[in-house]
């Protein structure tokens, strides 16, 4: 123990000479901070902002700048007549670019007036009388982007997808938004790429999913749960009692965790994580709130799970400690193997480490 104390006393010097020896020059970081600080200070001074805005407005009058999202409403969709002349059928690239733009600006709790600013007034609106409200929404909006001038979609109801219109490029993207108290609760984008239609959805808990509409069942994967495992999965989902997991192997627990990610079930994911004071695990409320505020993280999770499902070849388990193990995932395409750190809890039941490296 004496030696440990000595090493701890020397830790400052050791860290400075090894871990931190490259952290010397902070000039660039200082500049970054000053720049940000100036931007934020200027925002607080409306009289300055007005001057700048006035100058920008004058320039806009001369160059004819249209609002960011509205300027491409070239073929008459979006609910507002514009003076922009019609253009050719949108390419898959143009549609995809708009999808990405929408994903970057639409998020949970966005107010209605902000969406109106971005996308203009919706093509269709249904209030709670018209909508089912089962999903917690009290109002629904629909936009058809890249819609051909004069095109009227064949389905008259918002709940039906205009597959034909989208595949023929009579309309480019169908945007559906569910509202609660005038704030965005969820949204979905339906859009064509080649001969396929895709459905992207941001759920009310902040998770996202994306699939081909024609695909009724996902492609089988080694990560699929067997019927017996699925039964235990749903039992645990319902009761959250660790004893249900008692006889499950480390690989089975990991498969359940990936399934919970795939289904966007955050409470299940949280329950499958280790609960231990050593780990920086937030409360469930913090966790749910963090996910809601992190649409990029949600998108990354979705892409990651898709990749795992498609590319996983084998799962290999390796003990690293008496209470810890790693499940190594090897891939079909020979990319670098990936390890999930798993921990035996005090009841000797496998759980997923809160943070795989700490």
């Amino acid at each position: 123990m004496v030696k440990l104390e000595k090493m701890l006393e020397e830790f400052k010097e050791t860290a400075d000479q090894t871990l931190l020896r490259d952290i010397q020059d902070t000039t660039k970081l200082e500049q970054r901070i000053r720049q940000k600080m100036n931007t934020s200070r200027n925002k607080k001074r409306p009289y300055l902002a007005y001057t700048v805005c006035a100058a920008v407005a004058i320039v806009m009058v001369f160059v004819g700048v249209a609002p960011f999202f509205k300027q491409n409403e070239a073929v008459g969709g979006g609910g507002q007549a514009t003076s922009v002349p019609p253009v050719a059928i949108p390419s898959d690239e143009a549609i995809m670019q708009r999808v990405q733009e929408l994903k970057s600006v639409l998020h949970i709790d966005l107010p209605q007036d902000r969406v109106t600013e971005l996308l203009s007034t919706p093509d269709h609106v249904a209030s709670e009388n018209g909508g089912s409200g089962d999903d917690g929404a009290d109002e629904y909006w629909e936009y058809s982007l890249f819609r051909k001038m004069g095109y009227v979609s064949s389905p008259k109801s918002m709940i039906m997808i205009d597959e034909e219109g989208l595949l023929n490029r009579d309309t480019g993207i169908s945007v559906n938004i569910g509202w609660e108290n005038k704030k965005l609760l969820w949204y979905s984008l339906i859009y064509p790429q080649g001969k396929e239609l895709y459905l992207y959805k941001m759920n009310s808990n902040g998770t996202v999913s994306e699939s081909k509409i024609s695909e009724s069942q996902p492609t089988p994967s080694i990560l699929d749960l067997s019927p017996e495992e699925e039964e235990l999965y749903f039992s645990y989902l319902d009761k959250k009692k660790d004893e249900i997991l008692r006889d499950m192997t480390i690989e089975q627990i990991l498969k359940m965790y990936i399934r919970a990610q795939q289904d966007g079930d955050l409470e299940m994911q949280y329950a499958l994580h280790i609960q231990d004071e050593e780990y920086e695990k937030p409360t469930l409320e913090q966790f749910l709130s963090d996910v809601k505020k992190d649409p990029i993280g949600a998108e990354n999770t979705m892409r990651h799970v898709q990749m795992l499902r498609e590319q996983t070849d084998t799962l290999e388990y390796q003990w690293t400690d008496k209470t810890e193990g790693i499940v190594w995932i090897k891939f079909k395409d020979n990319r670098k193997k990936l390890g999930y750190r798993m921990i035996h809890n005090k009841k000797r039941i496998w759980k997923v480490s809160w943070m795989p490296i700490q």
Partner: protein
Amino acid sequence: MRGLELAQNQLDKTKEALFEEVMQAYLKKVLRLVYLIVKDRSSAEDITQEVFLKAYKGLGSFREESSMQTWIYRIAVNEAKKHLRSWSFRNLFYKPEVDAGIVEGIESAVIKSDHRIRFARIVMELPSSYRQLIILHYYEELSAEEVADIMGISTGAVYTKLHRARQKLKEQLEKEGAW
């Protein structure tokens, strides 16, 4: 109106001057502290930027109930913890080596003592809640009371966790035969 603007400018100047002092005194320290917690240079810089922007906004409300260092370290630890909860961190997957610049290029380091290098690596592999305490207490050389203030826990909890962290270090050193 012009008078008001002038007064506002004067206030800003004072605040700016104070902020400059804070940045000169603590920027590198905060960057190093955050880096030791999150173990990634780029994330550490982003977090440090956020820490100083928060500090700038909060300078007016700083009441000197704690020292400036404690105040700014508290912001830094909270921001680093927020990062540890984020997707990007939670989804960094296990890799056998610590990404802390400790292994590669070590030959050229001033320090040649192998056991000290191994010890630094073991500290960096500690679970984050233990690592934060070791860093604040042994690297920043803060008292248990100051650590408690920064982490928002009791002094007793600091002692208990420090004891556990040392136990964990000892186990790891024994396991690796580093004694």
